[in-house]
């Protein structure tokens, strides 16, 4: 591996981490679309910053760009507050307007510089190692590594300092206000971080893909955990994983790095979406299927409970009487036998003590919805897990 390759992967990983952190909170706040808006509307800020400094590496560009990101959020909220249009419409109105101002400014005045529309949209990670940070002639590494490094350190410090505040204002803005943690301050803080991060990631992955880096890792992590800290860590992990494997995919395909990174992000999400243990699609379908069988089981046990007469409990009678297909009857009877809930003696089915107990508890739960007594059977049956 050459040092340029290493540098690219390092930059991509830092970008992924810096994006995953605000991204997690955006997803939890149901504001994923805002990241799209921010990523497009920082363009006029970048361009104006460039006109002032005539230096693409100036920190003023980042500040101006972040500012226009925050302006976008303010405008969206202002339009939405009038109640004349809904939030998603407001977002759809504001960011194209901001973006087009940027595009016009570039095409009018900056035709001859590196700030062209392709780079803005897609970024170019492969060129990042060529732009060095030189101090007194000493090579301190690629400039974008420094930019995203500083942004990441700021983001991490803010996250550690205000984790509790971010959590409460995201979960319950009303209580946060009552306790004196102004949700507005935290909201704009988060928006500023998201804007600054977008600017930092811009160089590397461009305006469109930065959205994927913010949203996809968080959305993937959300399917896997019930814990905010773990969700943050998983988001970071998925981000870095996709950044590095995306780089090698691009290397192998000889294609765009940012495109490959996003492809990996999408594939990772798809895998988790399908196979996540609790919230994955397959697990949900399996659970539904199991619940269906368990409802049948309960119906069956209840029938046994209600009838002492032998003819009602004959195994063939059950087939006809409960009106199920053979397969279903068999799987229900098997399930009941496996759990020692019934005994079969000369084709006559009887409830065992355990089966009777179970039926009583289950019926009681279904009628009262009070789940304090069914803790013991929750583990074995999906039906009672709420």
């Amino acid at each position, binding site marked *: 591996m050459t040092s340029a390759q290493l540098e690219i992967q390092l930059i991509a990983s830092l970008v992924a981490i810096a994006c995953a952190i605000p991204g997690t909170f955006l997803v939890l706040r149901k504001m994923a679309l805002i990241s799209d808006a921010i990523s497009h509307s920082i363009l006029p800020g970048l361009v104006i910053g460039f006109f002032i400094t005539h230096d693409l590496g100036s920190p003023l560009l980042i500040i101006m760009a972040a500012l226009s990101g925050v302006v976008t959020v303010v405008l969206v909220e202002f339009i939405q507050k009038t109640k004349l249009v809904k939030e998603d419409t407001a977002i759809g109105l504001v960011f194209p307007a901001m973006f087009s101002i940027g595009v016009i400014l570039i095409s009018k005045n900056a035709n001859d510089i590196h700030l062209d529309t392709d780079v803005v949209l897609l970024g170019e990670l492969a060129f990042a190692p060529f732009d060095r940070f030189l101090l007194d002639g000493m090579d301190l590494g690629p400039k974008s590594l420094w930019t995203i490094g500083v942004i990441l350190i700021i983001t991490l410090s803010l996250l550690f300092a205000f984790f509790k505040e971010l959590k409460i204002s995201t979960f319950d803005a009303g209580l946060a206000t*009552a306790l004196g943690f102004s949700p507005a301050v935290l909201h704009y803080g988060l928006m500023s971080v998201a804007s600054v991060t977008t600017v930092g990631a811009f160089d590397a992955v461009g305006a469109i893909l930065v959205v994927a880096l913010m949203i996809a890792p968080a959305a993937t992590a959300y399917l896997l955990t019930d814990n905010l800290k773990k969700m943050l860590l998983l988001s970071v992990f998925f981000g870095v994983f996709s950044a590095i494997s995306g780089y090698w995919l691009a290397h192998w395909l000889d294609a765009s790095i940012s495109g490959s990174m996003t492809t990996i992000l999408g594939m990772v999400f798809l895998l988790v979406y399908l196979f996540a243990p609790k919230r994955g699609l397959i697990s949900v379908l399996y659970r539904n299927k199991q619940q269906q069988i368990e409802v049948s089981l309960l119906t069956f046990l209840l029938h046994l409970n209600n009838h002492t007469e032998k003819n009602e409990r004959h195994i063939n009678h059950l087939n006809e009487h409960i009106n199920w297909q053979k397969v279903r009857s068999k799987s229900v009877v098997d399930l009941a036998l496996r759990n020692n809930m019934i005994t079969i003696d000369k084709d006559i089915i009887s409830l065992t003590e355990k089966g009777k107990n179970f039926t009583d508890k289950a019926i009681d739960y279904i009628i009262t919805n009070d789940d304090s007594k069914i803790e013991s059977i929750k583990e074995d049956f999906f039906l009672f897990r709420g």
Partner: protein
Amino acid sequence: MKQQKFAVTVDDLTVAYNYKPVLWDIDLAIPEGVMMAIVGPNGAGKSTLIKAILGIIDPIAGSVSIYGKPYKKQRKLVGYVPQKGSVDWDFPTTALDVVLMGTYGSLGWIKRPGKKEKKTALESLEKVGMLSFKDRQISQLSGGQQQRVFLARALAQDAAIYFMDEPFQGVDATTEIAIINILKELRKEGKTVVVVHHDLQTVPEYFDWVTFLNVKKIATGPVKEIFNDDNLTKTYGINYKVSVQK
């Protein structure tokens, strides 16, 4: 009962959404140590009144004081149970963690909850009978359990005045009784409890003080004196009959 000292005083409070008043010139004094129901029809501004007292909504006129000082200086004296529907229960967190949020107010900015706060949170969970659910993800709790977690969170605030926005909404009879017993316990400790309440039948049984609200304040005072058909009719606008056990 000593009734001279007021826990909460509301003066000329007016709140408007988009220039349409939802609360109109409210004067209200809540004596210390009462258990008060706020009743009124939908859209009467009951939740709004609580939110305005807690500074969650800015009024366009009027002022609120908690033991004689503005709310902002008295935050630590006030506990709050919002409506259950006001939060996203799919949020990745546990019951214990939600209750821990009740201690954030006394911690202030940046400082993190430590052992002391965790102990408070565990004790609060125990009080509402939810200790065994402490590590359960909150979406895995039933509606009644979620409401208990919210109550535990308010208990963890260790306040002198509690505001609760429809704590009985969507809970079964057992949970309702459990909650009301905890509230009565709070009152015994000399705390003031203010509850937005919907079930008029249970007002005389649960509360000793009541405020009738319908955009304007209709009446406020002891349940025994003012909880009558006259005030109910004025508040609900229809000829309301409720059997009051005196």
